[in-house]
């Protein structure tokens, strides 16, 4: 799965740490998601989407092989 988390974060101009705090996860988790090393659960993905005021599909997208 590919995601636009880093881009969205840049648009909002917030750090991983701040985003993590807003959503209630650790900074490592945000970092792992951005690096594509961790696929978040539905609940976490929805929280992230809601925080950025986007639909989930606008941030997360299936890629070949998923």
């Amino acid at each position, binding site marked *: 799965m590919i995601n636009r988390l880093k881009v969205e974060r840049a648009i909002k101009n917030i750090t991983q740490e701040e985003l993590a705090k807003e959503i209630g*996860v650790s900074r490592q988790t945000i970092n*792992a*998601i951005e*690096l594509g090393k961790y696929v978040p*659960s539905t609940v976490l993905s929805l929280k992230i989407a809601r925080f950025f005021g986007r639909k989930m599909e606008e941030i997360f997208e299936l890629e070949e092989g998923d």
Partner: protein
Amino acid sequence: MKTRYLLPHSLKLPGWIILGIGIVLGIFWLIFMDNIKFPTYMPALYNNDFDQNNRGWLVMITNGSIVDEIAGLFLIVGSLFVALSKEKVEDERFMKIRLDSLVWAVIVNSIVLIISLFMVYGLAYIYIMSISLVSLPLLFIFKFKYSLIREPDTEKKYQFTHPLRAVGWILLILGIIYWLLLMRFHNIHIYANMPALYNDGFVQGNNGWFKIVPHESISNELIALFIILGSLFVALSKEKIEDEFIMKIRLESLLWALIANNILLIICIFSFYGMTFLAVMLYSTISFPLMFLIKYIITLRRGY
């Protein structure tokens, strides 16, 4: 997103076969231990068996019976293959059930082990220790299979509250300090009259169920208790900010520790003989929780 440290599904069936042979051999050996003679001339890394002439490092020994070593090898390899091979169609739900089952197995195994350490004495103690070499993956397989049938509540978490982390560190440090001191000073053993669930041994008389074992050293047991409880409290307590990614790190650390610990066990089974192997079995009670803890902390600190 792939989970690390899982084996391919194709190892599942061979795993069951190897495990089956291991169980049959193991039971066979436990029942007919004294009658099976299968002398084998083989190398040992270290041997201090009373019956052997060749004691010391890197010697050739005549092993009285190789059946127990083979049974151990089959049990360890078989249970590892079954426990860690992927399901036919592996998905995230299996991963969640796998983690819950593994944590459950680690907790149950530790409780039973600690109770046995303090309440079983003599020859029966050595039986328990032998069984404990393979009990964790077996318990896990049982719980995992059972959960797949029962459709568990995946919201339920086997975790300790965050404050227990600090308690865990204190226990762990106390355990390690006492362990190091005990290696240096032999007069700091702690003795107690222990109520035994079962005593069967070298200890003067008093054999049977529900006996008091007088003036027994419980130093090793205390070290095991402190290190097992300490590591598990630290690694299984919630982090300050606990989330699903940390749970994944925890699962992978458990899987890694299971593999590493079992490889180490196999090496030890074919390397150490005599009294040293008893020490190996005692160390094996703390090696898994320690490996789990170290891997977990390193992954958490160093990044994924």
